[in-house]
């Protein structure tokens, strides 16, 4: 990283990329990593570790996950304090109450933002992420850039996403190094009194559940009548 050019972590600056995207090769063969994953897949099936059905079911499951599920959970927690307490105590059970299956192998921990505490999530060792609730992580979350900077300069990273926090707020960075996956419960924005749960869910963006930003009212149209 140089003085002249600081790559941003939001994925819009391709100079910040740390790997190539070769795509389809001139000889028509798939790229190296695609070939490698196919080879591993074939071996696992051949040895009876997995079936093709298992793989397809997992693909279908992951493709059915998206930040919209997290939005529903957060919105319910905003309107129902008892639900919020259950969510903070046992996130998988609270997700199941809304029909969201988060019963994967990893534990899920929800951390709550308050007036004085702001949480932000990273996985410096790889790309651990609460996939059962948010789906696949964005590319920037997996980049070396984010993983290095989130721990040492979280406030600068948040500022690039447009979030400037005062010194009165304690920033807590969670490095998800082991079996726990973290999800941030952002604060309900001011100016949303009287909004329905559905309207609230719509403003809970992915970045606010990673903690690099807050829900933003300026990015959605206010509901009619508010």
């Amino acid at each position: 990283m140089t003085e002249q050019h600081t790559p941003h972590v939001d994925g819009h600056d391709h100079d910040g990329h740390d790997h190539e995207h070769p795509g389809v090769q001139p000889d028509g063969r798939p790229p190296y990593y695609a070939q490698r994953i196919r080879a591993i897949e074939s071996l696992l099936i051949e040895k009876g570790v997995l079936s093709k059905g298992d793989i397809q079911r997992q693909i279908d499951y992951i493709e059915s996950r998206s930040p919209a599920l997290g939005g529903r959970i957060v919105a319910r927690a905003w309107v129902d304090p008892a639900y919020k307490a259950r969510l903070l105590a046992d996130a998988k059970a609270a997700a199941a109450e809304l029909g969201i299956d988060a019963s994967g192998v990893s534990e899920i921990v929800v951390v709550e933002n308050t007036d004085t505490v702001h949480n932000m999530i990273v996985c410096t060792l790889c790309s651990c992420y609460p996939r059962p609730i948010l789906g696949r992580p964005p590319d920037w979350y997996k980049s070396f850039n984010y993983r290095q900077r989130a721990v040492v300069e979280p406030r600068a990273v948040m500022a690039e996403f447009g979030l400037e926090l005062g010194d009165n707020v304690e920033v807590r960075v969670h490095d998800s190094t082991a079996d726990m996956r973290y999800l941030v419960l952002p604060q309900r924005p001011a100016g949303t009194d009287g909004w329905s749960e559905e309207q609230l869910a719509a403003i809970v963006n992915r970045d606010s559940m990673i903690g690099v930003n807050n829900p933003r009212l300026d990015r959605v149209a206010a509901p009619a009548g508010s």
Partner: protein
Amino acid sequence: MSQETRFRPGDRVWVKDEERPGHIRTPHYIRGKTGQIEAVHGVFRNPESLAYGGDGTPKRPLYLVGFPQSEVWGRRYRGPRHDRIYVDIFEHWLEPATETRG
């Protein structure tokens, strides 16, 4: 808890500063630093065994350990002194913090 844990919330701990080969889930930047046990997550299969075809037993206690950012990065950290970093660390990477270590 199916197994006795060595540390309790509030205990001050030191992360072992060791260099070992293998699938280690203790990041380098936190080794040798002193923090505080915030919570006991439970016992989990040991990733250092799981990654190489082992069954991960015996399960190891896993802790949420909090560190002041100033302890981890010193003057490199530009932010208020109350900012913290939380890392999940297995028990066999932790020792009780002593006066000499911090």
